[in-house]
């Protein structure tokens, strides 16, 4: 019995210890659970706060944003509402796509330019926006809900600025061309005045001759028979003088020369006007034209200045480059600008080295299937290395009187055709080259 009692006490104590251990363990587990749930709560709170923060951020940004998952538009910010004129919050993605005429994708690489048409009081207003898609979860499984943020930026002003700059550059090009043309025509017409003044002096000379011959006739009619020998002698002298004067008038090379000069002047003015008419339109249409003859046309527009600078123009043209399909007028303006810059660079160098012989090389070379390179190289004053890239920037110029539009305009033009334009120079008084690579044909 005692043994049994001892045995029982032993078991009870064992049970108590076990119970105590289990109670401790339970307490431990409860404590851990409590701690974990607190952590969870805190994490949850943090997440909620973070979410709220992001939402607030989206709401306050001046860029239009819309948050959506595969099915529904979750949130729209005020910027979006004011840009698109409506808020699709809560609507289905499919309905929103239809209403906005805009795809709601989740691809991060996807960028699209989109036009928003709004009816204003007097006319339809068009706003151009650049739309980008940002998926908020990088790796998502097919069945999980994933959200995308669509960001739309109003780029109308940027486009307008580009257009304004391009037009200003075009106008500057025209102004430069007009200046050259005015100079030419002004000189030609003034020269023609000179020719006319000279020709104008001939009729009075003929009149004097007529007067002299009439006088001789009058004198011989009034002469007495006895004076016959003397009269004949004098008449002979007068006739000899008349022949001399007439042959002098006829033979005066200058008379014919002046008439030729007048004719040439009129012809030259006509030519200049025609070239100007062709080149002055802001016509950026792609046309099919012969590249070497375009170069000829361009050179003839500034021929007189090239001659005055006594510059040797060397053409090294690839015979394979004939017909091209490009915007012709901007092309003329660009080449003209290169040549003009080269002439001025030569002029600049001449100020220091009087005996320097100016030279401009125009080189073309077909490169690959549908591409060619045009190089306009001079041996003028050169470009400092730190300015090689700057010269293409709007408003930048190397010259005291330059506008800085010319090369900027050329750079814009080349960029619009997906071409390349760069300058090369070994520095001061080492000459410079403008190199442009363009497609031979661009789609119309």
């Amino acid at each position, binding site marked *: 019995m005692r043994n049994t009692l001892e045995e029982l006490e032993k078991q009870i104590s064992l049970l108590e210890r076990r119970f105590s251990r289990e109670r401790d363990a339970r307490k431990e587990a409860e404590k851990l659970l409590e701690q974990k749930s607190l952590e969870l709560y805190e994490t949850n709170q943090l997440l909620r706060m973070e979410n709220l923060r992001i939402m607030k951020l989206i709401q306050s940004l001046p860029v239009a944003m819309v948050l959506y998952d595969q099915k529904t538009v979750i949130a729209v910010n005020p910027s979006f509402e004011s840009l698109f004129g409506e808020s699709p919050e809560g609507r289905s993605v499919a309905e929103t796509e239809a209403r906005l005429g805009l795809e709601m994708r989740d691809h991060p690489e996807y960028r699209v330019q989109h036009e928003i048409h709004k009816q204003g009081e007097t006319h339809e207003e068009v706003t151009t926006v650049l739309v980008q898609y940002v998926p908020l979860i990088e790796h998502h499984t097919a069945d999980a809900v994933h959200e995308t943020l669509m960001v739309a930026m109003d780029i109308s002003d940027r486009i307008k600025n580009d257009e304004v700059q391009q037009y200003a550059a075009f106008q500057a090009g025209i102004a430069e061309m007009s200046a050259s043309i005015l100079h030419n025509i002004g000189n030609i017409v003034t020269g023609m005045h000179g020719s006319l003044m000279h020709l104008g002096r001939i009729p009075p000379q003929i009149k004097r001759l007529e007067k002299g011959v009439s006088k001789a006739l009058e004198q011989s009619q009034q002469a007495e028979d006895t004076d016959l020998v003397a009269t004949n002698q004098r008449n002979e002298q007068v006739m000899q003088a008349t022949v001399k004067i007439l042959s002098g008038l006829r033979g005066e090379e200058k008379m014919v020369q002046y008439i030729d*000069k007048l004719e040439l002047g009129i012809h030259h003015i006509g030519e200049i006007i025609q070239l100007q008419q062709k080149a002055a339109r802001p016509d950026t249409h792609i046309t099919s034209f012969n590249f070497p003859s375009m170069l000829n046309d361009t050179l003839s527009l500034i021929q007189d200045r090239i001659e005055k600078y006594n510059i040797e123009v060397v053409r090294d043209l690839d015979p394979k480059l004939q017909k091209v399909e490009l915007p012709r007028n901007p092309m003329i303006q660009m080449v003209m600008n290169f040549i003009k810059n080269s002439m001025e660079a030569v002029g600049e160098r001449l*100020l220091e080295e009087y005996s320097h012989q100016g030279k401009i090389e125009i080189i073309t070379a077909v490169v690959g299937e549908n591409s060619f390179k045009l190089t306009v190289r001079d041996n003028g004053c050169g470009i400092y290395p730190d300015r090689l890239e700057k010269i293409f920037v709007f408003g930048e110029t190397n010259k005291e009187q330059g506008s800085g539009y010319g090369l900027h305009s050329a750079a814009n033009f080349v960029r619009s055709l997906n071409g390349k334009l760069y300058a090369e120079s070994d520095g001061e008084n080492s000459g410079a080259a403008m190199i442009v690579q363009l497609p031979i044909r661009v789609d119309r």
Partner: protein
Amino acid sequence: MEVLNQHRLARLLIVDDDPRIHDFYREALSLSHNSDEAELEVDIDEMFAILEEDNPLQEEAAYCDATLANQGLEALRISNEMVEKGAPFDLALLDMRIPPGIDGLETAKGLRKQLPQLLIIFVTAYSDYRDEQLMEQLEQNYSMLHKPIGQQQLRDEISKALPSELQFGNA
């Protein structure tokens, strides 16, 4: 008339890079005519001499003493020589675009350094400078004539610019 004849003939410096414009100045200011014309004049004189009559039309006398130059630096050199000779120019007619080398305005500034009172007329088809820029650089005693110009316009403008004690043409 006698009093007028005592006046000194105005001395002009003309700078233009275009030979056609030189011809124009020669004609417009009755400078020197070419040898063919001079010979023709002698022949006509001879004819009237035979007839013992006066030649009804005498060649117009030069309007002024004029020197023609092609370039700015050349003009500065000539002007300097004239200053040294004690016969400085009274008026300069300058084209604005006279490449290569310095342009019309630079030439004008150089001439003014030699002759601060020099009268200047720019004769140009296109000026690379705005009026304010010219005003700032030259201050006064300059004017602008736009090509194309005619004989009368040129004569009037020169005559207007020159002081009355200098003789220009027959006036």
